């Protein structure tokens, strides 16, 4: 076996000498950091790239919120820059034109979901932590792993480049509905489709890797029911990506054909564009695009939340110093969520004229899928009871996640019922709902994960004071930004309006002699200003976080191999873990959350710690009270 192809050159001279007969050759910078096949480097690559995209998405949002609160006014500070970069058709005199607003809206959604949150939650954390947690030396297919990052990077590049082409980026929303997506006479949509195909390829490769790794590379003794919940969450997420993305890829290919080859997959007969009958064959179905898009779109939102739930579980167990309540319930619930999430998608389409039979079906399955989510959240809440809670920065974010996700989830219920959705569909209520789940929901869990696993990656803790400042600022201002949107939505303010609903305001109604009561009240309109300044403050409060990340790499408080005294395997390696992670396959003896075991001295028992030697005094069995 010694002559086998040397798959992954060792890059740490001080690591355990497991490549025996081979001479260690230190790969150069490019092989080590750019074209690495090591899951930890790839995880960090994903994480860093995703955080950059999240920041970019934040900027897009800030500019949109300015336009909403002050329609037609030049953006302070960034206006001239915008005009210089994008030209004075899209950004005349430093203002945001309506087309540019639509571009920002579409790309904010696309970038945050596909380039920001999913790569960070699934690919970055998953890549770094999952092989360590299961006792594996790397992912099952390291070169496929590298390819998946490169596809992601290219997809992101294509999306970014689309801002600078004539006509600008995609404008038809992150949902890219036909026929609008095919009617816009610029190339932005084409770039969007190509970017999406690259991103979908990246996700598929990653999903195959994760599932194969978790099935095949668990260390001896790591049975399915001894896996940390984070691994279960990533496993189900990978399945969602594997099976739900391809129909969207099929649809994207068909929309590409509509755009480029002038087919009519999604273009109906009799379509008129700009007042003229379109020269197409017709016969297509716009609804078909919606079905294929949302077949992915709904599992996608579970892709956004499940890794976050996994992170929350790990941090709760570690910082309450007691086992998670209801591990089995968590596992079965996450499996149920994964399965049910495939058959709820048309609750995004209640207003497309569907009949009562089919909308009742989807309403029922939608209500059903909320049950396992509630079970998971309940298990987390109960896990806090009686715990010795350590209020460090990761725990603060996790504690905030619980009620924030609760609000997000509960506000989804009126959207899941077909009748109440008639009033709420496409309003700001929807925006508030999904942002609550993703922003103070998932993103808080991701921040928690960064603070929590930072010591394993770098050997140093992040600054605790600035971590708390980051937390409190983010917590307060997330709510300032998104809470008012519920009220706006219920008052009838629609989504995607570039002037913040001014056309429908009571003031404009009064000017036009229309009924004032039907319009958006001055109070509702004034909330736009609150939201703008909340968003700006939210952006500013991220600065200490960014500085903290970079500063702490070199100057943070030094941490040992297991600073949080956690039981899971990733903390039982040297810091940072060497190439190949473990010198020999670790042996697993117990479940993932053996904290405060009665009679055992340190209040935690790592998964790979052998049983107590029989030579030591026998401990009388304590009745299981927890």
């Amino acid at each position, binding site marked *: *076996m010694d*002559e*086998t*192809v040397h*798959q992954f050159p060792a890059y740490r001279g001080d690591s355990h000498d*497991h490549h025996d007969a081979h001479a260690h050759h230190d790969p150069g910078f490019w092989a080590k950091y750019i074209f690495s096949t090591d899951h930890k480097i790839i995880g960090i690559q994903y994480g860093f790239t995703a955080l950059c995209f999240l920041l970019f998405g934040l900027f897009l949002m800030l500019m949109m919120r300015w336009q909403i609160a002050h329609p037609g006014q030049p953006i302070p500070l960034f206006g001239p820059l915008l005009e210089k970069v994008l030209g004075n058709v899209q950004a005349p005199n430093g203002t945001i034109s309506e087309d540019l607003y639509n571009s920002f809206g579409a790309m904010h959604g696309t970038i945050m979901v596909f380039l920001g949150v999913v790569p960070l939650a699934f690919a970055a954390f998953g890549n770094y932590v999952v092989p360590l947690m299961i006792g*594996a*030396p*790397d992912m*099952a*297919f*390291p070169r*496929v792993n590298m390819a998946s990052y490169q596809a992601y990077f290219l997809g992101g590049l294509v999306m970014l480049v689309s801002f600078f082409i004539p006509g600008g980026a995609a404008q038809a929303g992150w949902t890219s509905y036909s026929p609008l997506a095919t009617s816009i006479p610029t190339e932005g949509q084409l770039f969007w489709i190509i970017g999406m195909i690259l991103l979908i390829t990246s996700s*598929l490769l990653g*999903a*195959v*890797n994760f*599932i*194969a790794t978790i*099935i*095949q*590379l668990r260390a001896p003794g790591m049975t399915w029911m001894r896996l940390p919940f984070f691994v279960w969450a990533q496993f189900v997420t990978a399945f969602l990506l*594997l*099976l*739900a*993305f*391809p*129909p*969207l*890829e*099929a*649809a994207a*290919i*068909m929309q590409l*054909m509509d755009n480029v*080859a*002038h*087919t*009519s*997959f999604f273009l109906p007969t009799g379509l008129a564009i700009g007042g003229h009958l379109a020269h*197409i*064959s017709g*016969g*297509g*179905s716009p609804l*078909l695009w919606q*079905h*294929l898009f949302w*077949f992915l779109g709904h599992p996608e939102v579970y892709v956004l939340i499940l890794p976050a739930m996994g992170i929350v579980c790990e941090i709760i167990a570690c910082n309450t110093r007691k086992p998670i309540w209801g591990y089995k319930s968590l596992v079965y619930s996450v499996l149920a969520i994964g399965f049910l999430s495939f058959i709820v998608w048309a609750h995004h389409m209640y207003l497309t004229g569907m009949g009562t039979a089919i909308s009742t079906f989807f309403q029922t399955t939608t209500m059903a899928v909320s049950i396992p989510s509630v079970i998971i959240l309940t298990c987390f809440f109960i896990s806090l009871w009686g715990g010795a809670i350590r209020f460090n920065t990761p725990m603060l974010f996790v504690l905030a996640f619980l009620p924030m996700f609760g609000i997000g989830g509960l506000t989804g219920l009126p959207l899941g019922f077909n009748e109440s959705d008639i009033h709420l569909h496409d309003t700001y209520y929807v925006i508030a709902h999904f942002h609550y789940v993703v922003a103070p929901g998932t993103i808080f869990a991701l921040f928690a994960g960064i603070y929590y696993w930072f010591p394993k990656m770098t050997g140093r803790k992040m600054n605790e004071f600035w971590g708390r400042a980051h937390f409190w600022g983010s917590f307060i201002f997330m709510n300032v930004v998104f809470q008012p949107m519920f009220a706006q939505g219920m008052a009838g303010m629609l989504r995607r309006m570039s002037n913040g609903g001014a056309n429908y305001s009571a003031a404009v109604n009064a000017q036009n002699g229309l009924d004032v009561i039907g319009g958006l009240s001055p109070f509702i309109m004034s909330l736009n200003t609150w939201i703008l300044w909340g968003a700006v403050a939210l952006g500013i409060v991220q600065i200490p976080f960014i500085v903290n990340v970079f500063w702490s790499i070199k100057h943070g408080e030094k941490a040992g191999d297991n600073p949080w005294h956690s039981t899971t395997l990733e903390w039982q390696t040297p810091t940072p873990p060497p190439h*190949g*992670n*473990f*010198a*020999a*396959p670790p042996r697993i003896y117990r479940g993932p959350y053996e904290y405060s075991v009665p009679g055992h001295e340190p209040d935690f028992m790592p998964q790979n710690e052998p049983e107590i030697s029989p030579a030591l005094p026998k401990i009388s069995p304590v009745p299981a009270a927890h």
Partner: protein
Amino acid sequence: MEIPYTVQARPDTGIYNAKVGIWLFLASEVMLFGGLFSAYVLLRVGADPGTWPHGWQNVTLGTANTLVLALSAVTTLMAWVACKVGQFGKFKFFHACTLLLALTFLCIKMFEYHDHLTHYEIHLADGRIADGHMMENDLQKDYVTIDGRYVSDESALIDLRAQKDIKETELKIPRSEIKDMQNYGPWHNDYLALYFTMTGLHALHILGGSIVIGYLWGPGRKMWKTDPQRFTNRVEVSGLFWHFVDLVWIFLFPVLYLT
């Protein structure tokens, strides 16, 4: 620590890593082609009665392609068997056959695409339609020559299965009489859009599979000397992909050519 189970099977699952990986990937491919087939079902069921074409494909060529692919699936399996019994010479022979059959498939496909793209439907000023293959389209001349027929209505062009003995003659059509001219590309109607997209994506998969098998047959065969078991696994895994591509065609052929 090396990655385990790249060659030996993991005891509790009974499979080696790459096999898990390829079946996962094939599951995602089932969903991909499933998405396209669902588009086909919807567009066909939703089409107005009498507007969905029949008989627009050359069944002989399609049948030939089906048999070519089926034979290549057999040679792919035999190539793996040859590796299992250690007969590398036979492996080289069988996969050479696979590659030649793949090339044959793609050539027939190219011919079919060319045939469609040179088939024109010409709407004339007097309301008739001329339909046939373009023989001459010289821009210097003031007429086009097609080998086809005149029909009075588009509905006569839809169901070719129902029509017997279509006579095609050489027709010279003055450009001044042409109102509109379009060839049978994917833009012509949804059936052709689906045909070109589905067979096109399938052909890309044939190409990709050929490149992988070609690599194993060519530069990649070095691994046979250093790690024959792992090489055999690679042959098996790529063979599974190839069989899947054949499976897709088993459904594409009847759906697009025969119904």
